[in-house]
């Protein structure tokens, strides 16, 4: 009975899939250090940066919308911090605030465009992704003559954004905090119920008095700010801003959410599931290099493992639901 309750949690499938993936690489890459502290830090660091964005993306997808503009926001935020501190000589806090404000603006613009045009958010935010990337590139070249710029150490900001212990970055803690906040909002606040309602049936939610567009606007700002946060963090971690960085996040964030059990059509999912989804993605993309297998196959291999992870997740969820109705 206890187990059955556990299996009915929306994140349980992703949790088991994560265990399976971990065991897979522990067997085939364990001898080369996959389970060592350094090896664990490697995939956990990448999962953390992905996860800080993927968690709010998961909320937005549960509410039935996409945001594919986060990749460009990461790059734009990183070049804003680098230009303002190293080229314009401003204190690092100013750069951070400008970058966060940029993230808020992109979120507001996304929400307004989706609302006003009624064009699917998949297309609208993909377009914003190009606009933000192009603008970041052009503006940084006008100001500094280059699209990548190194920046000096950032004092207090180094402690906040790039501290690390045994190769594990502080981003893992930020990821945990971001996930805890999101999980609390989704499970324990009226706003969380609205997210499910909007994604489950938009029109019904509207008729029931849910402020649909306010919910989506808040979520778009949340994803934009989270992406800006990651951009700021990477700029300070690696002492470099890059206007075209971050494009990997465009689809990886949505992929991690889906692996974590979020339904592509909205209305279903959990924050803990997305967290496991990010871990799975991190382990699969980094773990392969521990196996020593030829890397020409890496893309095919990553794709196959992703499908297997999602299938395992679905099978477990269906089993749980079936055993429930049989009772």
């Amino acid at each position, binding site marked *: 009975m206890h187990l059955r309750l556990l299996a009915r949690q929306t994140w349980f499938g992703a949790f088991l899939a994560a265990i399976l993936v971990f065991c897979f690489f522990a067997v085939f*890459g364990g001898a*080369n*250090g*996959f389970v*060592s502290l*350094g*090896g664990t*830090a*490697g*995939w956990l*660091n*990448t999962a953390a*940066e992905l996860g800080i964005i993927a968690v709010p993306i998961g909320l937005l997808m549960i509410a039935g919308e996409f945001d594919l503009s986060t990749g460009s926001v990461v*790059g734009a935020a990183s070049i804003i911090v680098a230009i303002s501190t190293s080229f314009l000589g401003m204190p690092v806090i100013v750069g951070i605030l400008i970058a966060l404000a940029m993230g808020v603006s992109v979120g507001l613009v996304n929400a307004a465009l989706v609302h006003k045009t009624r064009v699917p958010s998949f297309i609208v935010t993909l377009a914003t992704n190009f606009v933000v990337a192009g603008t970041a590139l052009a503006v940084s070249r006008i100001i500094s*003559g*280059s699209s*990548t*710029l*190194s920046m000096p150490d950032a004092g207090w900001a180094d402690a906040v954004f790039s501290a690390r212990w045994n*190769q594990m*970055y502080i*981003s893992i803690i930020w990821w945990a905090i971001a996930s805890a906040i999101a999980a609390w909002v989704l499970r324990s606040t009226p706003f969380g119920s609205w997210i499910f309602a909007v994604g489950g049936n938009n029109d019904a939610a509207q008729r029931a008095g849910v402020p649909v567009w306010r919910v989506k606007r808040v979520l778009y700002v949340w994803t934009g700010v989270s992406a800006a946060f990651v951009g700021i963090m*990477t700029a300070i*971690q*690696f*002492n*470099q801003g*890059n206007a*075209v*960085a*971050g*494009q*990997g996040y465009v689809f*990886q964030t949505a992929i991690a959410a889906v692996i974590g059990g979020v339904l592509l059509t909205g209305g279903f999912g959990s924050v803990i599931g997305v967290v496991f989804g990010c871990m799975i993605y991190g382990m699969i*993309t*980094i*773990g392969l*290099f*521990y*196996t*020593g297998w030829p*890397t*020409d196959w*890496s*893309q095919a291999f*990553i794709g196959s493992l992703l499908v297997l992870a999602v299938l395992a997740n679905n099978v477990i969820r269906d089993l749980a639901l079936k055993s429930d109705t049989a009772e």
Partner: protein
Amino acid sequence: MTPQIKDARSKGIEVVLYNSGRTSWKELRAAAFIGKEPYQMGFVAGQSASANGLTNGICLNQVPANPVLQLRCDGYVAALKEAGGTGNTVILKSEDSNNSQKVRATVRSLLLSNADVNGILTLGAGLGVDAAEAVADAGKSDSVGVGTIDLSTKALEMIPEGRMLFAIDQQPFLQGHYGLLLAQQHVDFGLAPSNALNSGPLLIDAKNVEKVLSVGKEFPSVRGAN
């Protein structure tokens, strides 16, 4: 660009190719070509690596299926093998090549899982910086040597610090400068070199990096590094 070049030639407009077009410039009836020799860029990198005692190298290719990048990696591996060592190409996902965290985790994993590897070549300066940092994180600065193709100020600054062995320069400034000269001399005087001109590779290592860095400070656009 082939259709536009053919179109220009059919209208009697003279064409000079630079940077890319090494294999097709004569066929397209261009007056001249100046550019890098991609295989040689990798080969010089491999020679420099073995001269520094490296015997087992990995070439990180972040744009799989790009023939020019593949040639660079082939050249690196061939030079290592010629010196009695060995080498391999490892494919990075293109979309992640700007993600420093991922590049570093990847390089660390490669070093952990291939204990014999003592050389890394990257095909971009940003990747080179990430690779050098990853080598330090893995505690292998003493045994593993990193080199890169193409320049950035940060990558160049790592050379005198001993964290980067070399950077291979294709000297893009020369491509633009001589490209224009070639065009002008061909149109005004009917002059043209009979072979493709090589603007690179130029090996930048501890011996000549100070000069490159000081030029970069005084004339930021000449070295093409930032």
